[in-house]
């Protein structure tokens, strides 16, 4: 991996963008990486656009500022792609992963990335997967599976071990959600399409 990977998560309040960033950071930390996971706090309401960020590196991370040149953008809600800010600052060789049923090439056009072939575009039906697996349209865990697949940031089986433990702590009162979310991660890891 590159020394520093910077991820920007775009979601809507309630879709779990913050949880995704924190879970990914914790899993990456257990895998031995130096990590940061932080949300951007504002006047969040259910459904309002929200952001969260990750920095992952094999060296200590000193930066404590926002991420404006991400190498990975993860979009939890397909309606957010109308905002030109979604692809803003994407570094060359970067990748944008969108929760959508569209093909990657169609999504590339919608993101106005036709002129930037060096940016990869990936899609996965994270909402559909989460409906199937946990009965709710909370696509964050499925999106984590897709992000791990397209970035190769973490070794998948190791990540799943950590995710099982972390989800177990998070859903102590509702253990059924642990297996459902793990299934969602695995399916999205297998189904994500990269253009």
């Amino acid at each position: 991996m590159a020394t520093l990977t910077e991820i920007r998560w775009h979601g809507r309040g309630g879709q779990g963008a913050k949880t995704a960033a924190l879970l990914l950071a914790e899993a990456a930390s257990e895998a031995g990486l130096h990590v940061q996971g932080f949300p951007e706090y504002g006047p969040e309401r259910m459904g309002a656009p929200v952001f969260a960020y990750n920095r992952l590196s094999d060296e200590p991370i000193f930066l404590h500022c926002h991420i404006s040149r991400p190498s990975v953008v993860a979009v939890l809600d397909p309606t957010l792609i109308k905002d030109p800010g979604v692809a803003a600052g994407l570094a060359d060789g970067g990748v944008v992963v969108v929760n959508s049923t569209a093909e990657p090439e169609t999504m590339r056009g919608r993101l106005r990335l036709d002129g930037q072939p060096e940016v990869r575009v990936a899609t996965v039906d994270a909402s559909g997967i989460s409906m199937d697996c946990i009965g709710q349209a909370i696509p964050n865990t499925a999106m984590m599976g897709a992000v791990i697949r397209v970035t190769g940031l973490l070794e998948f089986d190791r990540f799943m071990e950590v995710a099982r433990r972390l989800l177990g702590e998070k859903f102590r009162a509702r253990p059924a959600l642990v297996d459902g979310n793990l299934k969602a991660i695995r399916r999205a890891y297998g189904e994500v399409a990269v253009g």
Partner: protein
Amino acid sequence: MTTTAVTTGTVNPNQRRVALTGNEAVALAMRQINPDVVAAYPITPQTDIVQYFSSFVADGRVDTEFVTVESEHSAMSATVGAVAAGARAMTATSANGLALMWEVLYIAAGSRLPIVMPVVNRALSAPLNIHCDHSDAMGARDSGWVQLWSENAQEAYDNVIQAVRVAEHPKVLLPVMVCLDGFIISHALLNLHVLEDAAVRAFVGRYRPDHTLLDPERPVTVGPLDLYDFYFEHKRQQAEAMSEARAVILQVAEDYTRLSGRRYGFFEAHRLEDADSAVVVLGSAAGTARFVVDELRRRGRKVGLLKLRVFRPFPGRELAETLARLQTVAVLDRAEGFSTAGGPLFTEVRSALYALAEDGGRGPASPGAPPLTMNFIYGLGGRDLDPGDIESVFDRLATAVETGSTRTPDTGRVGPLIEYLGVRE
């Protein structure tokens, strides 16, 4: 011993590497300290600390009496009462919560009560803003509290544990604030090494006060009327205690290094040995500044960083000696003191440099005047400070080095005393 090693130092094997938010790290330190009393009122962005700690109480993981109160004024009052009665007591707050504690902050310090209080730095209203700046703690700088500042979750955790020993030292007996940046650190999941519970408990020891309200064999009065007959003597003693805190802070840091492998002092001097220019900064911005310094060093520029950890007592002499041989110094303030004569950190740093010049101690390598100083105010209300902002500061310093003056090159006039980074004007 005035430098701080950052988290890359040797790690003693009695520790676990974890990923926690700044607030989780502080709450963990509080759990390991296991204070007798915690009285607190929630306020963003400190809320998690109180929430996590209350769950430790509910789960029986601490022996603490947890007092829920109706305001921060009451939180600090209850903490004052508990410590006066002989308990080890803590609270935590932010911004307007600290402002509401105001009169009781002075009572805690003037009564010589060793309270430890994490302050999760946040802008003061108005306008209403929940994000980070340092106006809250800077406003309390004259209240008689020791102030330790933290760059990240590791330092917040380490500072809280050390603060107990500093506060309770018989030569100090003063309250200590441990500052960490709201949201930027408090809500960011970061790596740190944490000690075993038993190691922390052994390090902080038991609090055995000499005098307590609940000792009928040796009755004392706390907070009595004290007019022109003795008030001045008590304030003089309080000033002496703050002065004694200097040596105690370094001694506790040394003991903590033996325990943890991490080194702390009054400040961290990063690549200052042969630097021409440096920035002086508090809190999380020091991390971003270190990144920029290392980057500019790769390009051959002689730049450095001084990250202040101890703001009260102010280590003016040590700081001035460290900066004396530089040509230019930029002080970055995350608070607007509205003095029109510079931010609160700037005025203290510049005053320390001036004193050094006066007594002839300009440092061995610099026969000339003390460094030119510039003041930059940044980050109010959580405005982001990115590497480009800090690089622009070093560019301004480079111009000052070239011209030997802080005058603005295009107009030739003396530049403004205070410049604002990242503001729209």
